[in-house]
């Protein structure tokens, strides 16, 4: 077990890669009452074409199968997992993203039993025709719930514009139609390929004793056998390298009260999967804060003019096989909103916002927000698991923030920001009587 001390944060991280390939990280937190564990496979909604373990031919599986699998894991042969967790007073849950599926629990008592329950249920699939069919109704309701959510529609809309080929354009849960085709056999194929310990990691934080907990985990894993794993081969459709396949604009009419506008910027270059990747991501975040953050003159100007309001926001997503940025919000005039954002993006290299003193301000703010996020065990577990830059993990953020200069940021921006990779999506109110 490796021990790494981060003096500035006052935290110590314990790590070990087990014989079966599972990566384990333990982060004890003084004074906390709760233990929070997250067991993750690097398998998400975009992994719909791959070579199944033990075979040599790629298969294409129905959209939404990773999420479906997540739901079905909770049904075990002779019991329901929620009940086992319930017996030991733990909260349990799971979620699926584009690139991963995480299973989690939190508890304040019986931590050993709960930890073993987590490891055991995720490592013991049980799918039958009957239980698979029963789940289709529940997931159909989940999909339909999102269909009525205009913000979700806005985000889906811009992704479909930016990625006419890549499966990130698809709803993580699939569609009501696509999930009908899912069978137990396909679930087993996906499970066996992606739930091998060598494709998984476990992060536990909060109240815990590292030696004791690592002992429980080792013992649990050593008692199980897993097939020998080869590197997983995943396939994604070819995209235009210059972004020429991007759909520049679409509009959706929906029964909403106010128009919504989103501008998307597709990253045409991959981020390095090491410290440089983390540095680049942080640099882009600082750039966006300087251009669009609430301390920018742009924000004040657009807010005062009524072009944007409190719903305004932006996000940068850097993930396995894709990266993009979006800037969105409600607007009285969706066109005026997206024109204003594009204007800022087009002229950003000469923007008066990009000064050393503004950078110092946003760096300071970002350091503070980062430290505040440390209060939440969930946020730390999630951010740690979400950072795919090799050894450069969540703990490395402060020194990188300290070191970034305005030149670094301009240099990074020039590499990633390509104005040919822009797209706009609007949602406009449909004439209805529902108001």
């Amino acid at each position, binding site marked *: 077990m490796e021990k790494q001390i981060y003096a500035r944060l006052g935290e110590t991280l314990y790590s070990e890669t087990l014989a079966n390939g599972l990566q384990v990280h333990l982060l004890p937190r003084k004074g906390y009452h709760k233990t929070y564990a997250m067991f993750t496979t690097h398998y998400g909604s975009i992994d719909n074409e791959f070579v199944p373990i033990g075979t040599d031919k790629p298969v294409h599986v129905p959209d939404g199968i990773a999420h479906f699998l997540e739901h079905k894991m909770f049904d075990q042969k002779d019991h329901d997992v929620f009940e086992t967790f319930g017996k030991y007073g733990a*909260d349990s849950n799971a979620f699926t993203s584009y690139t991963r599926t995480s299973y989690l629990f939190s508890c304040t008592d019986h931590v050993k039993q709960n930890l073993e329950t987590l490891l055991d249920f995720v490592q013991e699939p049980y799918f039958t025709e009957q239980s698979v069919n029963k789940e289709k109704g529940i997931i159909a309701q989940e999909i339909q719930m999102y269909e009525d959510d205009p913000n979700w529609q806005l985000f889906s809309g811009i992704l479909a514009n930016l990625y006419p080929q890549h499966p990130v354009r698809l709803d993580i849960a699939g569609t009501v139609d696509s999930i009908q085709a899912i069978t137990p056999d396909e679930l087993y194929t996906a499970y066996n390929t992606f739930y091998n310990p060598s494709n998984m990691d476990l992060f536990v934080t909060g109240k815990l004793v590292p030696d004791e907990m690592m002992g429980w985990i080792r013992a649990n894993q050593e008692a199980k056998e897993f097939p020998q794993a080869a590197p997983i081969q995943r396939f994604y459709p070819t995209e235009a390298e210059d972004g020429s396949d991007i759909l520049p604009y679409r509009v959706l009419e929906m029964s909403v009260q106010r128009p919504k506008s989103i501008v998307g910027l597709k990253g045409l270059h991959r981020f390095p999967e090491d410290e440089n990747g983390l540095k680049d991501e942080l640099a882009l975040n600082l750039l966006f804060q300087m251009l669009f953050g609430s301390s*920018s003159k742009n924000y004040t100007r657009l807010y005062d003019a009524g072009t944007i309001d409190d719903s305004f926001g932006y996000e940068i997503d850097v993930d396995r096989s894709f990266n993009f940025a979006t800037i969105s919000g409600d607007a009285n005039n969706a066109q005026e909103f997206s024109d204003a954002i594009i204007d800022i993006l087009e002229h950003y290299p000469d923007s008066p916002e990009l000064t050393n003193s503004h950078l110092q301000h946003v760096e300071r703010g970002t350091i503070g927000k980062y430290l505040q996020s440390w209060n939440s065990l969930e946020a730390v577990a999630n951010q740690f698991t979400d950072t795919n830059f090799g050894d450069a993990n969540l703990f490395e953020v402060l020194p990188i923030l300290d070191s970034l200069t305005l030149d670094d940021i301009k240099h990074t921006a020039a590499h990633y920001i390509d104005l040919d990779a822009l797209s706009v999506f609007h949602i406009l109110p449909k004439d209805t009587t529902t108001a």
Partner: protein
Amino acid sequence: MRKTLADGIYLNLIPTKQFKTIRVVIRFIAPLERATATQRSLLASILEANSADYPTQADLAAKLQEMYGASFNIGAFKEGNAHILSVELNLVNDRYLHGEPHLLKTGIDFLRRILFHPHALEGAFDATTFNRERDNMANYLRSIVDDKQSYAAIQLDKLYFDADSDQQVTGYGSLDDLAQIDPASLWDYYQHLLAHDRIEISVLGDIDEAEVVPDFAAFPLEARPLPDVKLFYQQPLVPDVQEQTKKQEIVQSKLDLAYQIEDYFYGPHYYELLVTNGMFGGNPLSLLFANVREKASLAYYASSNIDAFRGLMTVQCGIDAQNKEQVLAIIKDQLHDLQTGHFAAALLQQTQADLINHYNSALDSPRYLTSQAFYKTLVPEAVIDAHTFEKGILQVTAQQVQERAQTIRLQAIYFLEGEAN
């Protein structure tokens, strides 16, 4: 530790080294009234937007960045018959920062400037700020209908609460009332609020009493009598269940139910109520989740909640329109099973463990800890601590659950029905 700064103005200090932050919350408490809820809600937006010292949003944002990304917000909400304007500031503990920034002192000074030097002139709020925040609030109020779960919940409130009750308004007010407010009348109301509201300040974190108390004591506030807030709302039972259906062009229909309950926050049967609600629809093991979702596959979410300040329990689920009667029947059956004692002992035990876990987990949240301290000040007779809570929950018997379930009365059903476009 609680200190009286002046009559009606209190400071609650919660020292702990658990967190990397210090949290400051200032709450202004007044009786909930239809006429003032909207004013208070608009005040929250205006005070949060800028001030005399930070006249633009960029100035204010720069100040927050200077304070190491302090998170600052002002919100308005209701609790029972109280309306609360809540000012929150979260700061990083100095020990994690270079140098000695004295963030808490700076933060308290910042709050003083925000509250006592707003962007105003000659007895009126700055007109530009006022107009913009009023328009934003109007847009927000109009767009609530786009969030179907919230919209259905608000409509259920309107259906359930007496037509003349102040509970008819949401905590953030109404469009009709918004149109009546101007920069001068809002300024006058703000002066009234500063002079008459009960004020509860909480500070949580690695703090030193001797440093904190004088800074808050120096706030320009006068002693005041405690406003007459009868926290718990009650209304008579209606003999017939009130039903309302509204059609909208949506994919998923929303079914929301309101039940009257007899028990209130930390009242005589509070623990029994918590357990009963937990078993009914409070968690993924509950009867509603197990039967509406897991067994019948009719919903993705199906749950119940209690509002222990308003004597109300609600049930909410998202379903296909054609399944409404079937879902209603299942919900009724589950309550009936609780009322007649047809439930597994394991469900009772698991629900108790779940409630205790939730209580203890919340002790890791600064937000929860400050709000717990606040509720203790509102309901001083309540004994709120981990040990008492655990004991209280574990003492609840199956017989008591059955009795509590019998006091739960269905009063209203709101159905937001999806129709094909």
